């Protein structure tokens, strides 16, 4: 296995899929000559030309519509919305159009696009460039939502997303692009909807995803020193969520904590919590604890931003509460 960054892994996935299928193309703001705001598509314009790596105007609704229209006639667009915060400008095209087209038409058409975007805090980007809005899309039937935390998952899941026949919201994290990790030399894909146990443990189940996994792992290793054995699960796909994996873990540990970077109220963790309560509550020996971003707009100042997003310390507190 080679060691590459999350950014390089994503680029490899895009490049391999473009070589594999001539119907795959990329479109979005600054994805071409500039190489992407976070440099994910760097070099692809030079390799594939402007027909397949399209710089667009700042027109988010048109970018998503471009994906949908092209997908309807047989192409496999990978559209990029530079910040997940900017999906607000394209919500009709995502939620009312692409997500529902297959169903509304009685299966007459399908919309196989991938919308790559990135979210999360960590750069003092303030309230319009730091959000984690993935739960909005999880809420919508017809969409799939993926949020990978490692280079390995990023590559394997992006390839699967491009081959999937549905609209897929692929949420990257701006603070993960330089994260390195092992990626096989040979071709591979990861099935959408399958989570993994990142660390096995027997005392408490900790579900987390995207960059927050790194804080979750820190918390788990710290607590190991106190003799608390944490099982860390990364669902990787947020919709469809691998609930079976979570249920099995909860049955074993009887405790559940969810660590997430999106807002506390009605976030991804709220859904996991509700689902576990409905399905396996009899196995629980303590309250389900959600450790999430505070319910405030993300502030710019480093000190404030750091306080809003849950770190390992807050996760450890959450775990202790669940075990009390």
């Amino acid at each position, binding site marked *: 296995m080679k060691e590459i960054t999350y950014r390089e892994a994503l680029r490899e996935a895009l490049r391999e899929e473009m070589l594999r299928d001539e119907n795959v193309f990329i479109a979005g703001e600054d994805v071409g000559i500039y190489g992407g705001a976070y440099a994910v598509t760097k070099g692809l314009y030079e390799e594939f030309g402007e027909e397949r790596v399209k710089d667009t105007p700042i027109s988010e609704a048109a970018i998503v519509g471009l994906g949908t*229209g092209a997908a*309807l006639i047989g192409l496999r667009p990978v559209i990029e919305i530079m910040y997940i915060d900017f999906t607000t400008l394209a919500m009709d*095209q995502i939620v009312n159009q692409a997500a529902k087209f*297959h*169903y509304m*038409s009685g299966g007459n*058409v399908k919309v196989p696009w991938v919308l790559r975007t990135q979210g999360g805090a960590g750069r003092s980007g303030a309230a319009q460039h730091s959000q984690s809005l993935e739960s909005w899309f999880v809420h919508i039937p017809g969409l799939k939502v993926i949020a990978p935390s490692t280079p390995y998952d990023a590559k394997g899941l992006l390839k699967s997303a491009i081959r999937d026949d549905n609209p897929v919201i692929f949420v990257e994290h701006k603070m993960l692009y330089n994260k390195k990790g092992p990626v096989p030399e040979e071709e591979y894909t990861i099935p959408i909807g399958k989570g993994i146990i990142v660390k096995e443990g027997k005392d408490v189940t900790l579900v987390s995803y995207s960059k927050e996994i790194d804080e979750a792992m820190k918390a788990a290793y710290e607590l190991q020193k106190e003799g608390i054995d944490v099982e860390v699960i990364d669902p990787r796909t947020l919709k469809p969520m691998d609930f079976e994996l979570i249920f099995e873990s909860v049955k074993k540990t009887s405790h559940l904590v969810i660590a997430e970077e999106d807002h506390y109220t009605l976030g991804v963790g709220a859904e996991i919590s509700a689902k576990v309560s409905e399905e396996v509550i009899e196995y629980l020996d303590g309250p389900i604890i959600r450790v999430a971003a505070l319910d405030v707009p993300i502030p710019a100042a480093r000190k404030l931003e750091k306080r809003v997003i849950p770190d390992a310390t807050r996760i450890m507190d959450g775990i202790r509460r669940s075990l009390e």
Partner: protein
Amino acid sequence: MEEISKEEALKLLYNMKLIRAFEEKAGELYAEGKISGFLHLSVGEEAVPVGAISVMGPNDYLTSTHRGHGELIARGGDIKRMMAELFGKKTGYCKGKGGSMHITDIKIGHLGANGIVGGGIPIATGAGAGIKIKKTDQAVLCFFGDGAVNTGAFHESLNLAGLWKLPVVYICENNFYAMSVSLYRSHAVKEIYKRAAAYNMPGVLVDGMNVEDVREKVKEALERARRGEGPTLIEAQTYRYYGHSRTDPSNYRTKEEEDQWKKRDPINTYIKKLKEKGYLTEEDVEKMDKEIEKILEDAVKFAEESPEPEIESIYEDVYA
């Protein structure tokens, strides 16, 4: 103007009549409570879809609107499946899940009616971009109303199409009212076709009550698109005889205005023209009406006798 053959002219008349009869029938059935949901009738506007779609190539695409029965019928949509969809039946185009505003038929290049004003414009533009990537000689007709012109989706899409020279013909079915608000109370620039200047494409004003005028101008625009010269914005001025939907009292416009437009009715004026040319007799018209009546009777019968969708079908087609 290009001379239209007798056969072609009669086909134009037939399609306009079929649309009107479908709409009138749907209106009746709605009043009887047999059709539920939203129903936006295009009576009065028939010349626009019929004229435009008559010059589409077999492999071309179109996107339509909430007032979209006309485009589907003009493109040769299945009347029985349309009616069944309005009835919410399993045999409908969308298996009863879409209703009037979401009928889609990819086999004939119909990329969907749309429940969102302006929602289809970015999609048509995307199909145009897809055609360019595939390097075929196809084109897209994008239908929308005067209300849609004020959405951001219109602006974003036409800018992109003008910039990339996409093979899309944007056809504004300007019936002068966005639900109740008239164009004169909602558009800073009253001449919609003039907006084309902002997008580096030709803007063409068309008499939307004259099927041959629509046909001629759309034909030119399609030829331009196929030559790689890019999109055109066509404003076809027309009028909807009924309200926005079946619950609209039309209290925002006058009887006099309605009567003025009805004098220019696209079907009656065309019948008169074809009679003068010797293409048509009154008997021919009656025969045509009978034929259409039969088609609609059969469609209603098919819809009424069709089964409701099974409850189990609720979960089908959420994902492909």
